[in-house]
């Protein structure tokens, strides 16, 4: 895990800072003179060898010295923290909606494979997941803001937190990913429902509801959990489109702005934060697997014979 982070950090650093002249250009602007760049590089310790600079940078990063944004002229850490919290709020709210909606739809469809409900859920899921967020954001805005006038059009939260302002961004995110989870759950559920132990449970006279909740769901959840855990990093950094469209002041907007302004230290920090989030969710999903499927173990030697 730490190794992954180190490898990625080295990659990030190499991509952005291997060529020191590039760094100077990014900080001082495209048309700064060669003298200015040289002077700046000397002053900021860019004459040292690459590996040394990398270690120095890594240490600064670990100790919370993330540099100053070249565009906002503010400390990167103070800039990043509230944005990360805002995106966390959006992502958390979205997950709270996406997961139940996706799971319920998937379970309903999977239990009665081939039924009308199943067909409806499948069609709905395929349609919503194939509409990109920028398109559904426009549709939902046209419908709920311009036509019906029910919801706010932007989500700046400029006057403090408003739940109403979260509705549209969360709606767009849900539309996009709930269908995906539903499809995963459905196919997984359908497989599980045909397995002998479910038949046995049914034959023992258990109600369908009880069989689903007590026996099928836990096994059927393994695939959707992977998908859900993959949604977390996506929700945090991949929702740039949604955040920018609704002017939501989150991590995605910040990363977008940083990229537009080639704000090098901010880009580095954002990338590193994304790496940490991805790695942490991977660990969390591994732990969840272990809980869902006790046969799965991290110690290879203890794996029971015959387990796939």
């Amino acid at each position, binding site marked *: 895990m730490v190794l992954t982070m180190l490898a990625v950090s080295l990659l990030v650093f190499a991509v952005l800072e291997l060529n020191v002249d590039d760094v100077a250009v990014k900080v001082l*602007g*495209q*048309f700064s003179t060669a003298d200015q760049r040289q002077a700046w590089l000397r002053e900021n310790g860019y004459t040292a060898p690459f590996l040394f600079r990398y270690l120095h940078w890594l240490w600064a990063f670990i100790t919370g010295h993330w540099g100053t944004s070249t*565009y*906002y*002229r*503010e400390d990167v850490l103070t800039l990043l923290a509230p944005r990360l919290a805002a995106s966390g709020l959006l992502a958390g709210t979205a997950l709270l909606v996406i997961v139940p909606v996706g799971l319920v739809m998937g379970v309903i469809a999977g239990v009665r494979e081939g039924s009308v409900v199943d067909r409806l859920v499948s069609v709905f899921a395929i349609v919503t997941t194939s509409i990109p967020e920028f398109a559904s954001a426009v549709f939902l*805005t046209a419908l709920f*803001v*311009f036509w019906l*006038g029910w*919801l*706010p*059009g*932007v989500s*700046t939260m*400029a006057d403090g937190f408003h739940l109403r302002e979260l509705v549209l961004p969360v709606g767009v995110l849900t539309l996009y990913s709930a269908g995906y989870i539903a499809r995963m759950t459905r196919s997984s559920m359908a497989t599980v429902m045909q397995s002998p132990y479910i038949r046995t449970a049914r034959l023992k006279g258990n109600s369908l509801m009880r069989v689903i909740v007590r026996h099928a769901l836990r096994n059927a959840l393994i695939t959707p959990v992977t998908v859900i855990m993959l949604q977390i990093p996506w929700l945090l950094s991949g929702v740039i489109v949604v955040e*920018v*469209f*609704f*002017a939501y*002041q989150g991590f995605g*907007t910040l990363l977008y*702005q940083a990229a*537009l*302004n*080639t704000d090098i230290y901010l880009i580095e920090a954002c990338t590193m934060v994304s790496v940490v989030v991805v790695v942490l969710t991977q660990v969390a999903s591994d732990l969840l697997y272990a809980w869902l499927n006790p046969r799965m173990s991290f110690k290879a030697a203890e794996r029971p014979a015959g387990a796939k």
Partner: protein
Amino acid sequence: MSEPPPANTLRNNDGSELHPAVRPLAQNALHCGADRRSVLRVLSWLGVSLVSARAVLGVAARAVASNAPRQGGTLRFVCSVQQMTDPAATTWVEASNLFRNSVEFLTYVDPDNITHPYLAQSWHPSADLKTWDFQLRAGIRWSNGDPFTVADVAFNIKRWIAPESKSPNRTTFAAITAIEPLDELRFRLHLSRPICSLPEHLYAATCPILHRHFEAQGANWPRNPVGTGPFRLTDYHVSRIAVFKRRRDYWGQPAWLDEIRYLDLGSEIATHVAALAAGQVDLLYRLTISELDLVKRFPSMQLLSEPSAQTLVMRMQQDQKPYDDVRVRKAVVLSADREQMLRLAYRDHGVLGENHHVAPSQPDYFRLPPVRRDVAQARRLLAEAGYPNGIDLTLALGNTQGRYEQDTAQILQQNCAEAGIRLSLQVLPPAQYWTIWDKVPFGMTYWAHRPLGIMVLELAYRSGSVWNESHFSNQRFDAALDKALGILDPHERSAAMGDAERILQEEAVMVQPYFPRKFTAAAARVRGFRADPQDYYRMDKVWLA
């Protein structure tokens, strides 16, 4: 209508002797058919009281809203919140509209281009227009309690014209040789050449009067937002929000609004309209042509519009290959179909440009023979210049005002292809374009409206001026500007401007396709706000119903 009073009732704001040109100008307007508004404007430069000038010329002030303004409320304004560390060096009009709430100017130019007293209560020029006496308003205090005096003004003007100054004011006011304080509230400006429109130039976005200790206290205005204006800055985060609150101890009539919140909602204007439709904001900074139909469909929104001399300039740097060859520049200019650009990219909501950056709506505009497109001639010139098989060029642009910039550039691309010029477009994000706008060899730059044509020529094309993005340097042109700056009579002045315009066309400095009309939108409850052609917004008279 009653007969206007005779010209001898004209008087100066400070009671001093009228400038010798004042009475003949008024006579011209009254009896020889000269345009009265243009004359009124010139009289306002010369320090003549507007009340007396309006009465004599019979030009009424624009009617003000009839119902009484209401005190209070928070106005939410969608506007980019940009860096404004040094107001004198700012390149963004948006930023200037933020600090305009807190720092003030010596003069005020209204949307009709009439110059009014502001921090300066009155002024009068000498007969040769080279010595100007200004009288400051008494009793003004800075928000930190210090009295406002000549020392503040002297600090600013000296700072503008200092050789190391990064402000465009350095060249605009290069003619100022000395500022001579007469007492606490009076000073005299000495000029090396006559500038009759000096008071009007003093309201440029980069001319706010900062506190005399601005540099001593860190030269960072948002960190230490001292001002004389009706609002004070209370919260400021670049790209996010800026909040101004009303000052109760303001020297003039206090503002109606309690608070103004500038919200940065990014560059997607459709999003701004959505926020307006949902009642989350009250006022947009601008609309582009793409959102026009959407806004028209909402009766709850006010669509505000004003003709403007704002424009797009596709200029070529004269010291960069291959643009150092006038034949190459001419080939590009001759290929361009400006009518097509106006029709397709801006749906005809504007006025055609003539490649010299002076708009027909500006009073000093001089009509030259129409510019014609000539692709065959463009091809010939290109061959003569050594490119018989065509040439590859790159135009940089940033869509800083909206997508119509790129649409315009694409039309140029197709126009150029007909003449064998293979033009590629380098489209940058807006913020990035503003870091290179004056450095790229061939770029499309948006220029805001200026009340006078000469102001923009002075800023953008005089040799060595700070914002001279085309690196144009021409002594004949500079001399033409000097000549025009000294002429008071609007008619004669415009004739002198003709020379400057002609030189810009002959030298093929730019393709300047059209002057787009300005649009913006507001919520129904916003009152007292008028779209300003120049985008200079004073918010102290705005109120909420």
